Structure formats: C-alpha cells, structure tokens
C-alpha cells in the first residue's frame, strides 16, 4: 500500500496494515536476550540494560536465564576454544526465530587474542551472526545501535519468498554441529555451511 495513502487514512481514524508488518512489529518489539556473558563485554551489556542506557526502551529488557525462552544471543566477550562447544550447544537449544549479536573484537574475530592458541577466531565460524559490533569493549550506545540494526533487519524481512526468515523455511538448517574438543584444536575448525572462507580483496 502507498505510504501517503496510509497516512491520509490514519488522519481519518482508519488504521491500515499488513500481516507482514504486524508480524515483524511484534517480533522486533520483544526481543528477549539470553542472560549470559563471556567476558568484559558482558559488563557493558549489563550497563546497557540499566537505567542510564535502558535497553527496555526497545523491548529487550527481559533477559531470560534459559535458552528455551530467549530470542537473542549476545555473544558478549572472548569465546575460548574450551567454551565454544557450549556456546554452539546453547544456540542449538534456542527456539526459532533466534538472532545473534557478536559483541566486541573478541567475539567477531578473536580480538587481541587472535594469534593465541586458545581463543576462537570469531564465533561466526560456527553459528550465523546477524550483527557484528566492533570495539573493545563496545560502548552501551554501540550495543543499542546493534539492537536497533537488528530490529531494522527484522522489519525488512519478507515472510515469503527466497529471503524469508529461517523459522518459516522448512528446509533451513536448524541444528548447527557442535565442534568437538580434539587433541590439538577444535574439530572441525569452522562450519563450512555458515562460514565459507571470506575472500580478501586488496
């Protein structure tokens, strides 16, 4: 429907919408994050939920202590190779629709520990990430920006067609393989389905 017409009808007291808009409005306005933190970024995440930054303004204040009730996983901090299988397992336990925000330099790439032996070089090697936030740690404003970016992404999703959300696509991959802690490294070192090797353009 034409936006101008919609506004004009609104002035006359007639509210017109589509199922898609209503559905996406409902999804984006009550994103409940999972209550878990991995490192120092978790402190900034906690600050974001408190009175000064107040994540509740955007419908994300209900931090759920169970993955079964959560919509959003905020990977807040360093993912060590010892912790990575548990993170993937928690993600598998979340119900669709589910989203992931990788918060901070460590969660998106390994950060300052990238060339170490015990830190995963980005959680996007194993699970699909919707929004990446750089920073060490990112300020609460950055997390709010990521949250709003995620809401915009949900708002823009079409419920039918090729790019429909994963929970409406019966053929979409639902369970992501949990890496095994091997003798020298995690096996496999990445999930090729979600993380094909990026091409570096110089």
């Amino acid at each position, binding site marked *: 429907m034409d936006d101008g017409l919609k506004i004009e009808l609104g002035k006359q007291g007639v509210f017109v919408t589509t199922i898609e808009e209503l559905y996406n409005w409902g999804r984006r306005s009550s994103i409940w994050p999972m209550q878990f933190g991995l490192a120092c970024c978790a402190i900034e995440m906690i600050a974001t939920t408190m009175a000064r930054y107040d994540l509740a303004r955007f419908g994300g204040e209900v931090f759920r202590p169970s993955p079964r009730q959560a919509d959003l996983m905020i990977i807040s901090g360093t993912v060590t*190779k*010892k912790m990575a299988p548990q993170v993937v397992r928690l993600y598998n336990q979340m119900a669709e629709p589910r989203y992931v925000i990788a918060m901070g330099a460590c969660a998106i*790439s390994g950060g300052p520990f990238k*060339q*170490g*032996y*015990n830190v995963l*070089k980005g959680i996007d090697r194993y699970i699909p990430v919707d929004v990446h936030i750089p920073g060490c740690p990112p300020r609460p404003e950055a997390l709010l920006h990521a949250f709003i970016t995620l809401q915009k992404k949900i708002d823009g999703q079409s419920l039918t067609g090729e790019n429909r959300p994963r929970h409406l696509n019966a053929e979409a991959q639902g369970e992501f393989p949990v890496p095994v*802690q*091997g*003798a*020298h*490294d995690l096996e496999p*070192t*990445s999930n*090729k389905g979600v993380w094909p*090797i*990026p091409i*570096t353009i110089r």
Partner: protein
Amino acid sequence: MKTVEEIKAAIEKAVPGAGVEIIPNPSVSGQHSLRLNPQTAIAVATFLRDDADLSLDFLSNATGVDWPDKEVAEKVKVTRTVTKTVDGVETTAQETVEETVKRVVPGCLEAVYHLFSVAKKHGPVILRIKTVNRSDQVNLPSFTPIWRSAEFQEREIFDLFGIVFTGHPDLRRLLMWDEFEDHPMRRDYVEPDDFEYEPTAHDEVLKRAEAQRAKMQGASA
C-alpha cells in the same frame, strides 16, 4: 630476613643431605634462589614453613620454566699423531689441532615457587626444582599439602608445561580441555594452523594464511 646463605645453612642443619644449591641472581634486585633436590623437597618445604625464624607461611606464586635441549659448540684441543713425508723421508710428529665439538645439553622443566611470611613480614624466598628431562621423567613433588595456595597454580603448570606433581590432590588440566594433549607454554609447542582468514595479514601470518587457504580450498574443491 636471613640471607640465602643463612637459609641454606639452616636447611642443611635441619634436613641432613638436603642438597640445596644457591643460584645467584646477578641483577640489581639480587633475588637469589635455592634449587631443591626433588627427593628432599617436601622435608625442606615443611621446614621452611614451620621454622620459627623463617615461618614462610604464604606461597604467593608458582610457575614453570621450560629449558629446551641446547646445542653447545665447544672448542677442544686435540693432539694427534700425523705422518708427514718431507723430502722423501717419513716422519711422525705430534700435532695439536683445535676442533669444534658440538654436544647437546639435555633440557628440563623447572618449577619456581615464591614464598613470603605474613607472620614475620618478610620475603620472598625463591625455590626452584628441576625435572630430570622434558619427556618421560617429568615428576616433581607437589607442594599443595604444605601450602594450599599451590593447588591451582600447580594445575596450571601441569596444563601448560606438563610437569606432573606427585601428591597433588586433584591434578587435572586447568585452562585447556581434558582431551587436549599439548603443553602450550613449552618452547617447542606448535600452535594449531587456523589462520586461513586474516584481513590484515603480513609477514609470517600472511604466509601461514596463504598456505592454509590453499590447503582448505584444495580440500573443498
């Protein structure tokens, strides 16, 4: 506080045949350390804790050191009998030649402990213990029964260096997972090659990233 020499004398008086050795520290701090014999280390440590003058009741730090096998080149003078033919006459003469002999000094692992006394407000006293080698004889006595604070630090040394502490109540890996087999803080540790993607790679990392990328693309094709 007593000097290291005095502590050594006190130990040798209390524990006969302790075999304590002073390792001087030539730097300004002058924190000389005592190398203990693994056989008598428990007796010596108990003495250091319980002695009225020292009463080293607090173990603040325990760490490991890896001493890899070292190749040493030495110049040795060798005297040989050399036969020479001068003007058709054979003569034998003694000749001294300098030769470079290479030999391998076997490496070892070492645990280092820093002790303080809270009661007497002095310290540190530094203890060192060496293993026999780096491969199969890596046992050392655990100080956890004497100072409880050694428990997690000895687990960390076990994890990262591979020293096995006999007498430790709960010797498991602390930082790495149980299935892990390597010891990352050893000098000869080879870290896993997962450098296939580096956005700003250069030098050594760039080489590794390119090699890894080629390998992975070859495997997937």
